[in-house]
């Protein structure tokens, strides 16, 4: 059985960016935690959504969050940049330290936290502005006024998001005229433009066709190392292809966390094994 799991994983691994992932592998042993979560409980009003989560997310790696629907993956992801603050009636216990700073502490500045921790959503959400303005929006609100500097940032971010060559001749066009996959890469470029250290991605490819999905996955592989990436996915193959570490959530609890390969081939918990196996049919 396990053999068949590994086998299933191997096929997609060959044709995507995992080759350069393998070559950078050594990093994973020595890197320091970039996000340290301690005893995190999270509540929507009276209902508790996360229970005693503790885990260290390592810098420069791609960490995948997997688990059944409603298990709290998105909730957990949104605690890292405090997007849950926007939902009335939420509260938390425990602490999250992001590059040395306790983010729920009194002195935390939300603006600088979110500048440091970028986010890409499940459904692409470009602003109804031009392509250029979408990418320039972040730097602008953080005080970059110089036109040529902005143009530079826009080009760099679009290049980084692998979109530049498709849009460089129509930067003034509405972002809503782009295809779904292009819009999602635009949103990635928009997040990159404020120069974050961490990228949170909540099922970034789940609304996209296979080709666009492959592009996003390649992109993640390219960003790996320069950014700490946390990605929620329902797609086990995708988790296997793009991530170094995998955390399995169930019913608001962290069931298992470890190297992706180990999680998929030798899960320690029965629950994890059942889930992964079920997922592969």
């Amino acid at each position, binding site marked *: 059985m396990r053999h068949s799991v590994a086998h299933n994983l191997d096929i997609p691994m060959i044709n995507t960016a995992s080759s350069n992932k393998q070559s950078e592998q050594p990093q994973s042993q020595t890197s320091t935690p970039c996000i340290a979560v301690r005893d995190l409980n999270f509540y929507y009003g009276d209902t508790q959504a996360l229970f005693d989560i503790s885990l260290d997310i390592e810098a420069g790696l791609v960490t995948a969050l997997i688990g059944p629907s409603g298990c709290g993956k998105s909730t957990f992801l949104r605690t890292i940049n405090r997007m849950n603050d*926007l939902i009335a009636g939420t509260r938390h216990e425990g602490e999250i330290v992001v590059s040395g700073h306790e983010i729920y502490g009194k002195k935390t500045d939300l603006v*600088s936290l*979110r500048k440091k921790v970028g986010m890409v*959503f499940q459904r692409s*959400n470009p*602003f109804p502005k031009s392509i250029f303005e979408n990418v320039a929006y*972040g730097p602008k*609100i953080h005080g970059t006024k110089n036109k040529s500097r902005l143009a530079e940032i826009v080009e760099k971010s679009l290049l980084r998001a692998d979109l530049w060559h498709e849009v460089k001749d129509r930067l003034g066009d509405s972002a*809503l005229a782009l295809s779904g996959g292009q819009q999602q890469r635009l949103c990635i470029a*928009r997040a990159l433009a404020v120069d974050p250290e961490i990228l949170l991605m909540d099922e970034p490819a789940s609304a996209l066709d296979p080709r666009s999905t492959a592009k996003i996955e390649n992109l993640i592989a390219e960003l790996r190392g320069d950014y700490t990436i946390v990605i929620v996915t329902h797609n086990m193959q995708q988790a296997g292809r793009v991530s170094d570490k995998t955390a399995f959530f169930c019913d608001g609890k962290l069931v298992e966390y470890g190297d992706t390969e180990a999680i998929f081939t030798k899960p320690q918990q029965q629950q994890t094994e059942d889930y992964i196996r079920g997922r592969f049919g």
Partner: protein
Amino acid sequence: MEQVQTISHAGISLAELKEKCIHAIFLFCGCVSIFTTIGIVLVLALEGAFFFQEVPLTEFLFGTEWTPLFFNKSFGILPLVCGTLLTSAVALCVALPLGLIIAIYLSEFASSRARSVLKPTMEVLAGIPTVVYGYFALLYVTPLLQKIFPELLGFNALSPGLVMGIMILPMVASLSEDAIYAVPGSLRQGAYALGAGKLQTIFGVILPAAFGGIAASFILAMSRAVGETMIVAIAAGQQPQLTLNVFEPVETMTAFIVQVSLGDTPHGTLAYRTIFAVGGALFVLTFLLNSLSLWIRGRYQERYTG
């Protein structure tokens, strides 16, 4: 076998008949409103045609004197247009900024309790008959303003303009709020996730995204102000003047129509026909404004569904 077939056949045709009847009733109701509109346009065009047989169109459109009821008749509509635009401009100066601020407050800042009090209150404001507003302007607002501006005359453009602004305020606020509310929450989240503050999100993302709907509400408000009758007829005076001075009395197109309709001008005279010419002009103006509003709204919706 045969019998069954005929019965079911009769049943179907009965149902069909019912369907057709209902269809016809709805069609008739729809047609009533269309025919009414066509009728109005026809009357305006016909009476207008008689009018323009005697008064050249150029004099009507570009003349600067409006004295159709005097012995020395002049038929330049510009003073009426000017009065209309002047009072409307005053009204819009009140209604647009305040309406937008209220809309932003309601959609982005107000607690649900404040909302549940404010929205119905606004709707009550919208339900007050305009004649009440008119006397409010004449008997209360004008004297009050005269304490601040002693040179203000008893009839003037300022006071009815301000009151008219209050009258259309609920419409602007409510339509703009709808437009802001329609902006997908994902855009807000996108902005906040980039580190934008509340005001940056509102002014940098939400308002631009709602621009179409807000602009449409502004133009509808303008159309409403241009067509408003009672307030200006009561409080602005009946002196067609080509002036931009809000302290002076003016006469609007609507107020002139009231004046002639209620006065003792004999039917069939040229003076009487002026109301159709003015009415036609008013119709064209508001029709253009409404179409513009619809067009803007259509474009704006396209941007989200497309």
